């Protein structure tokens, strides 16, 4: 079995890359959409195989306890989103918002994005992580602008500029990490290898590491969407095709945060370096409280859920900033739950916006009557994301709040305050969207419900019972994160 490991990890990268090339050349959109689903499924199955056959860590690629579940989660959501995307784009083509040529481009970019995100997750070289995040950014910029309306172009431009500045800072941070590692690990590739950095972390120059971490936090933090660097996020989510919003929220934000976690592990190994906690706690709380209040003023349904993503990324950054086994455990769980829930919500929202022909919240009412399946799907999703009890998000938020109360009761006040503000906003908006008199179009729409309910089902199950191996894995990684 051990021989299968390297093949598996290469396939996780090469299947999306190869499919991107094929899809770019393939004219028929129906075939392309199916091939997109098939390629995503293959990648998912291959990634799943990594649980059983893991390659030895190499100079460039590594599959360890920390990233293996993220790879599987990443490919799983990519697969379900490709199913959603197939029915979504069929409608977009029908109403003429996209043309077949653009669809070819869209599918190729989708696979390129998946490949780049997988690369960022399995990379063992801090330069390679940076390259992968950069490629992922560029592909999403192109996808956000694909409708070519005034708003879409503005969103893409803003995303591009802010994303580039962020990625520039991240590179500067990476260079400083290399400078810190060079006297210890020697010149060349060794000093950029993440496993070497973690092993030698105690002997790296703490002053350089501190400086590097500030740049990395600003750089990758821009991509995570932490306030005050979040300005691109709502626009990019609202103006791009909805499958891309789902992948952005559910996956790309996680990948950027994951890159940050890799560096946090290096910091954690050096006792005299600055503790990354307070910085992450501050940015996390700011994002949470700010996004919580901003949720009230949204008029566009996709923008609203984009702000909700900022809120949840804030919660996760806060949890990792708190550190310690319990808070890290909760943070990891919350990353997984948010990823599944938010993409399910975007699946629902995508079809709702298509059915109603608008994204304006004021024009959407009474969904549970006009489109019962979509409406109740949205209700379930919002209940989950707001953190109501039976769902998995409740569980992780509960863990974060209780561990904060136990250790830093004062920090728990703004945390709980922010959570309640966001909770109120989401339920208030949900009431208008899902119930009341029917507004707008009531014609039924061809939608794929399977991905949405599969995600929500997983979130529900996770809220009630998490299997022991999963709990053990989370605990193990939580300890590694320090």
């Amino acid at each position, binding site marked *: 079995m051990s021989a299968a490991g390297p093949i598996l990890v290469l396939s996780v990268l090469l299947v999306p890359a190869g499919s991107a090339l094929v899809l770019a050349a393939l004219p028929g959109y129906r075939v392309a959409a199916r091939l997109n689903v098939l390629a995503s499924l293959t990648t998912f199955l291959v990634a799943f195989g990594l649980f059983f056959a893991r390659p030895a860590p190499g100079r460039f690629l590594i599959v360890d306890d920390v990233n293996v579940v993220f790879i599987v989660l990443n490919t799983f959501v990519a697969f379900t989103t490709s199913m959603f995307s197939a029915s979504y784009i069929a409608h977009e083509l029908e109403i003429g918002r996209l043309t077949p040529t653009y669809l070819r481009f869209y599918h190729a970019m989708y696979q390129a994005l998946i490949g780049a995100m997988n690369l960022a997750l399995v990379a063992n*070289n801090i*330069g*390679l992580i*940076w*390259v992968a995040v*950069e490629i992922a950014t*560029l592909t999403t*910029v*192109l996808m956000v*602008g694909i409708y*070519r309306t*005034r*708003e879409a*172009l*503005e969103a*893409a*431009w803003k995303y*591009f*500029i802010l994303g*580039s*500045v962020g*990625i*520039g*800072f991240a*590179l*500067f941070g*990476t*260079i*400083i990490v*290399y*400078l810190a590692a*060079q*006297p210890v690990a020697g*010149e*060349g*590739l060794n*000093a*950029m290898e993440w496993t070497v950095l973690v092993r030698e972390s105690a002997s790296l*120059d703490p*002053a*350089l590491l*501190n*400086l590097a971490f500030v740049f990395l936090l600003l750089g990758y933090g821009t991509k995570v969407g932490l306030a005050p660097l979040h300005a691109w996020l*709502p*626009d990019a989510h*609202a*103006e791009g095709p909805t499958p891309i919003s789902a992948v952005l929220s559910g996956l790309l934000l996680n990948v950027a945060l994951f890159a940050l976690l890799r560096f946090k592990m290096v910091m954690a190994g050096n006792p005299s370096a600055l503790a990354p906690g307070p910085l992450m706690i501050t940015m996390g709380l700011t994002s949470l409280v700010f996004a919580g209040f901003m949720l009230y*003023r*949204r*008029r*566009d349904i996709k*923008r609203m859920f984009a702000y909700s993503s900022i809120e949840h990324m804030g919660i996760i950054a806060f949890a990792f900033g708190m550190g310690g086994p319990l808070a890290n455990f909760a943070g990891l769980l919350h990353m997984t739950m948010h990823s599944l829930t938010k993409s399910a919500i975007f699946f629902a929202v995508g079809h709702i916006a298509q059915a109603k022909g608008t994204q*304006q919240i*004021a024009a959407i009412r009474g969904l549970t009557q006009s489109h019962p399946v979509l409406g109740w799907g949205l209700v379930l999703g919002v209940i989950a994301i707001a953190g109501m009890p039976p769902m998995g998000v409740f569980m992780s938020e509960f863990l974060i709040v209780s561990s904060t109360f136990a250790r830093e009761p004062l920090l728990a006040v703004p945390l709980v305050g922010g959570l309640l503000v966001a909770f109120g906003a989401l339920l208030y908006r949900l009431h208008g969207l899902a119930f009341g008199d029917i507004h707008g179009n009531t014609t039924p729409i061809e939608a794929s419900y399977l991905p949405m309910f599969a995600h929500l089902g997983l979130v529900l199950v996770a809220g009630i019972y998490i299997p022991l191996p999963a709990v053990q894995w989370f605990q193990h990684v939580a300890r590694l994160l320090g």
Partner: protein
Amino acid sequence: MDSVAFDVAHLLAGGIVLLSFLLLYQDRIFGLLNVFALHAFVLSLSVAWQAFIQGAPHLYITAAIALCFKAIVIPVALHRIVLRLGIERTIETVVGIGATMLVGMALVALSIVVMLPVTVASESLAREDLAFALSTVLLGLLLMVVRRYAVSQIIGFMALENGLVLAATGAKGMPLVVEISVAFSVLIAFIVIGIFLFRIRERFDTVDLEALDRFRGERP
């Protein structure tokens, strides 16, 4: 460390920072493009000098890329785009030139204050190179902030990238992977931006970003 080698490296890196200041007060778009070409040219000299004193031949490739793409191809192409879009007018700045220069000086002071104390253990060349590089990065950022036109923002972004290349080459023995990728990212970025510019031009009659800013998605 040979003192001549040190002085020349210093001179070139300092020259890049000086040119960044020149970029800040250009009030014509073609002037901006020309200064940027010079900026990239000095960068390529600096990288080549690093290749020479570090005995790292692969850095010559980075220098060549900086010279060909950033000092020649990109300015020429942008020149054409500007002509084609018909925006060869005065650049409108958000903040006055004087204030911008003052902020720029503060940023340079900031990067020296930040970089020099923490890099005491490193070689003196790497230290000061890094301080210069950070200044260039921050000045590029400032340029992006104070200009309204998309073209000037691109220049600001590329000046920022030049600072990154300076930092990467100053770090002794940094693997080739990264330098090539930096160069590539600039190239890709340029293509992307080019596409965007054409699209923006196609759709609207201006590449003034303020015109794009009018619609925020939040007004009913």
